[in-house]
């Protein structure tokens, strides 16, 4: 079991959960410059992506700006 819940969906990393949030973003090919993250309901500032440790079972939200009125 090596799962994370990302944006509401379970994702299995088959034994290789990335160590830090920045690693996760890299693995998902998400440009960290345009993203804000929430880990288990706590906002992680972009400047802390490299030091935010990821643990199995966490719920992670990756959010960005889109067009809106």
């Amino acid at each position: 079991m090596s799962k994370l819940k990302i944006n509401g969906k379970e994702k299995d990393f088959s034994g290789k959960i990335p160590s830090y949030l920045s690693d996760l973003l890299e693995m998902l090919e998400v440009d960290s410059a345009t993203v804000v993250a929430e880990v288990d309901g706590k906002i992680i500032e972009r400047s802390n992506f490299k030091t935010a440790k990821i643990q199995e079972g966490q719920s992670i939200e990756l959010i960005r700006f889109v067009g809106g009125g």
Partner: protein
Amino acid sequence: MNIADDKLIINGQEISSRLFVGTGKFASNELMKSAIEASGSQIVTVALRRVDIDNENDDMLGAIDSAKYLLLPNTSGARDSEEAIRLARLARAASGIKWLKLEVTPDPYYLLPDPIETLKAAEILVKEDFVVLPYINADPVLAKRLEEVGTATVMPLAAPIGTNRGLSTRDAIEIIIDQANVPVVVDAGIGLPSHAADAMEMGADAVLVNTAIATAADPVKMAKAFKLSTEAGRIAYKTGAAAESKIAVASSPLTGFLRDE
């Protein structure tokens, strides 16, 4: 009056245009960028959504020059005050911007804002040092209550979001304008430049337009039309309308006709 001295001030900051534009529904980022440019707007709204981790994500912010425009994140999608506050905090963390268009719309059919949840969220967000611009129904009592808790503006709707139906709430907006001590921004439902001019002639401080520009056949030209009509309406308001009369008042002289008396 010198029109150049007629400034819109929100939260102590001078805003160069009384037309605010939304960035939703544009066919492309390029079109959005050109339309924003043509609108002459300074305040530009954006929304927050989940990243699609299975597909490539389009970076729309890259198309907006943050040195030139003031980004106004919204809390669209929030169904109650808790969700709105969460989105507000995320928006600030993502952008460093503390200005916020607060919208709480639990009803998916008309997207009408929830007054109780909006007031509740506004009170908390003002205390957290957000500059809150709340989207509300055209309710003069609610507008006063929001002003009292410290919102930077009130933004009553003209008609439901995206309906392009114009000032269906005219009478209530008139009362809001009459009573407000903060800028009144007429938001949602403005479908034509004449609607924007109408709101400005009534004394609204600004208008916010998205759908009418983004979904027009030519969004860039329509943005320009809204720019002109918003300015025209404002100048007319500041100048004061000429008197109305029930009977005709001839514009041409009533003497010197080519006939015998």
